C-alpha cells in the first residue's frame, strides 16, 4: 500500500536495528508518550528487536485510558436521558464507568452512536432538531481542532441542540510532571507526531532546554519509530539534548496554525484530572465562557461525582514508566481488557492492554 509499505519494510527495519546495535554503548531508558505509538511497538514487536541496553517505557498518551472515571459516569448520565443522542468515538463505549459503560446505556434504550468524525454529530443535530445531540470530546491536542470546529460551526449556525462533553488533555504538562519526579527514569522521549502536527514542537524545545532532555518527534509506523529510537540513542550517546523531527512529512516547527486559531477561539487551558495520575495543573482544555451554552456538563447539570478506585492497580507506576504491565500481580488475571482494573488496560492503546493483547505468549513460552 502506497505511503505505508515504505514505512513497514522489513529489510530497512533490519538495517536501522543493526545501526542502533552499533551505536549503543550503555543502558538508556526511552519513553514514547503516545498510545498509538505503544500500539505499533507492541504490534510489530519492536522492543524485541532492540539491544538489551535500550529499554522502552510507555507513557500516559492514551486518551481513552486517562479520561477520568467521573467523566465516563457523566457521559453515562447524559446518554441515559431520553431526549439525548449521545455520539462518541467507538473505543469510549466500552470504557467502564463506576456502574456501567455506554454499551450498557445503549442496551437499556439510550441512543448512543459511534462516529468517525465529530462533524457527524453536528449533522445529527441539524437533522434532529427535537433532540439534544452531545458529542464526547475526548483526546489530546490531536482531536481538539475538529472538536473546536464543531462548536464554532454550531454557534455560527445558531444550533442550540448541540453540545460537547469535554475531556481534552495536553501532553507537555504530563511530561513536565514526569520529569519533576525524583523517581523519573526516562532519559529521552519520543514526542507524539500527531500532537506536534497540530501544535508544532516549540513547547518541546522548552522542555529539552530546561530539563536537558532529548526529544525526537516521531511518526506511527514501525520504521518511523525505529528511526526515532535511532535518533534518540544517537543524541544520548553524543551527549546532546535537542528536539529533532523524524516525522517531517507531517510535522513542522510551527504546526498547524489555522487549527490552533480555531482551538484558541473555542477552548482555554484549564486544570484537568487524569485517570491513573490525578489532577495536573493547566493540563487540559475547557470551553471558553463565550461558548458555555455548548458545554454539556453545564447544559445537563451533571454534578461532580467521586468514584471509588481499586487499591491493587499499579496504573500510576505504569504511566510513569516505573513499572511494566507484566510486573503487576493483577495483570492478565484479575485485570483484563474485559474487566479492567485501571486506566492502561481500558483501551487497546493503553500499555497494559497492548501487552495483554500482543505479548502474553512470551511469558507463557518463558515459563
Amino acid at each position, binding site marked *: 500500500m502506497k505511503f505505508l509499505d515504505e514505512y513497514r519494510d522489513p529489510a530497512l527495519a533490519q538495517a536501522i536495528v543493526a545501526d542502533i546495535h552499533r551505536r549503543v554503548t550503555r543502558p538508556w531508558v526511552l519513553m514514547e508518550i503516545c498510545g498509538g505509538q505503544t500500539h505499533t511497538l507492541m504490534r510489530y514487536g519492536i522492543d524485541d528487536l532492540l539491544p538489551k541496553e535500550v529499554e522502552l517505557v510507555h507513557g500516559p498518551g492514551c486518551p481513552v485510558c486517562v479520561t477520568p472515571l467521573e467523566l465516563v459516569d457523566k457521559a453515562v448520565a447524559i446518554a441515559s436521558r431520553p431526549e439525548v443522542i449521545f455520539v462518541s468515538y467507538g473505543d469510549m463505549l466500552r470504557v467502564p464507568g463506576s456502574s456501567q459503560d455506554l454499551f450498557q446505556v*445503549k442496551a437499556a434504550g439510550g441512543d448512543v452512536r459511534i462516529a468517525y468524525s465529530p462533524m457527524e454529530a453536528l449533522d445529527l443535530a441539524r437533522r434532529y432538531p427535537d433532540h439534544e445531540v452531545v458529542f464526547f470530546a475526548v483526546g489530546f491536542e490531536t482531536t481538539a481542532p475538529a472538536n473546536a470546529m464543531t462548536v464554532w460551526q454550531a454557534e455560527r449556525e445558531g444550533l442550540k441542540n448541540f453540545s460537547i462533553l469535554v475531556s481534552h488533555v495536553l501532553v507537555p504538562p504530563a511530561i513536565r510532571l514526569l520529569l519533576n519526579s525524583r523517581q523519573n527514569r526516562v532519559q529521552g522521549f519520543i514526542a507524539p507526531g500527531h500532537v506536534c502536527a497540530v501544535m508544532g514542537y516549540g513547547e518541546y524545545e522548552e522542555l529539552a532546554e530546561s530539563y536537558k532532555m532529548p526529544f525526537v518527534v516521531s511518526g506511527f509506523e514501525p520504521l518511523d519509530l525505529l528511526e526515532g529510537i535511532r535518533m534518540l540513542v544517537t543524541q544520548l550517546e553524543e551527549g546532546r539534548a535537542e528536539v529533532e523531527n523524524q516525522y517531517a512529512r507531517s510535522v513542522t516547527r510551527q504546526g498547524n496554525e489555522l487549527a490552533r486559531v480555531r482551538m484558541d477561539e473555542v477552548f482555554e487551558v484549564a486544570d484537568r484530572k487524569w485517570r491513573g495520575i490525578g489532577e495536573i495543573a493547566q493540563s487540559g482544555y475547557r470551553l471558553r465562557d463565550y461558548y458555555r451554552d455548548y458545554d454539556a456538563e453545564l447544559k445537563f447539570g451533571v454534578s461532580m461525582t467521586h*468514584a471509588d*478506585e*481499586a487499591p491493587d492497580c499499579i496504573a500510576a507506576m505504569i504511566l510513569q514508566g516505573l513499572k511494566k504491565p507484566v510486573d503487576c500481580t493483577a495483570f492478565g488475571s484479575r485485570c483484563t481488557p474485559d*474487566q479492567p482494573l*485501571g486506566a492502561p488496560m481500558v483501551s487497546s492503546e493503553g500499555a497494559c492492554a497492548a501487552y495483554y493483547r500482543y505479548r502474553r505468549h512470551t511469558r*507463557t513460552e518463558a515459563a
Partner: protein
Amino acid sequence: MGQLFTLACPVPLPATERVLLGHGSGGRLSADLLRDVFFKAFRSPILAQLEDQATLDVGGARLAFTTDSFVVKPLFFRGGNIGSLSVHGTVNDLAMGGAQPLYLSAGFIIEEGFEFTALRAITEAMGEAARCAGVDIVTGDTKVVEKGSGDGVFINTTGIGLVPPGLNLSAANARPGDHILLSGTLGDHGITILSEREGIGFDSLLESDSAALHTLVRDMLAVSMRIRCFRDPTRGGLASTLNEIAGRSGVGMTLSEVDIPVREEVRGACEMLGLDPLYVANEGKLVAIVPPEDSEAVLEAMLCHPLGANSARIGVVTEAHPGMVVIRTTFGTSRIVDMLAGDQLPRIC
C-alpha cells in the same frame, strides 16, 4: 515524588444485566452467552460440541443440520444482498461439516411498509443462489411485524445435508504439526458492508465474497479424507475462528503474517478505520486444518477451484502456547492474535 500520582483505578464491573450488541459479535461475549444461557437451558450433548452444524445419525444416514439468521445492514451491497447471503451462509455451515447440502427452509420477518420491489429482489437472489448451489428451498414461514419492530427484513434459513461416510471433522481434531490453509483474501465482505453504511464516507469497488463453498470442500475432501476440520471465518473473522479451534483442540497456532492474503482496498480501509483484517467478517472463505502430509495436495485442489484461487498456507499448529494463536510479523517478531470480547471498535486517533 509518589505523592504527585495517585493510585486511581476503577472497581471491576458486575456482569451485565442486559444483552449487548457485543453478544452477537462472534467474540468472547457470544461464547459466554452460549455457555451461560443456551447450553444450560437446552442441555444437548450434540449442541455442546460447538460445531457449525449438528451431525445426526438418522435411519442409517448421517445428516448435517444447521440454522442461521441474517440481519445485515444494508440489505443490498456490492456482491449480493441479504437473500443470497442467507443461502450461502447456511450452505456453508453444512459444507463445513463436509456435507452435501440438500434442502433449505426460509423464514422471513418483514417490517410493515417494506417495499415489494426490494422483497422480490431479495427472494429472486435467494432462488438464484439456491439453484446455483444445487439446493431446494422446500419450506418456509412469513411473519410481518409492526413498523419500528424490525429493520426492513430479517431472514432465517435452516438446512440439511448428507455427510459422506468415513468423515471425522471437528474443531477438536487439530494436532501439532498440522497445516492451516485459507481459501483466499480476508475481510472483503466486512469492509464492503462497512463502506456502504452511512457515515463512513469512502467509495470502493470492493465486493462481498459471499459464495457457497460446498464444491470447494468436496474437491478438498476428494484428495484427503484426513482433513481435521473446516470453518468459515464469518463474524469475528479468522482470528476468532482460529482461537476457537486452538481452544477446542488444546493446541497452539503460529501464523505467518506475510502469507495471509488481504486485498489492498481492505488493508487501506482497515488502516483508515483502525481495524485489523484478521477480525473482519468473510462470507465466502474457509480455513482448513490439514495433516502436513496431505497439505500440498489439498492446497493444490483449492488453487484449482474458482473460489480458492488465492488460497495459501498461512500457518501451523503447534504444541507451544496451547489455546493461543500467535503471529510471526514481517519483522520476524511475534504477537498474539487474541479473541476479541465484542466487535472491533474504531480508535480515537
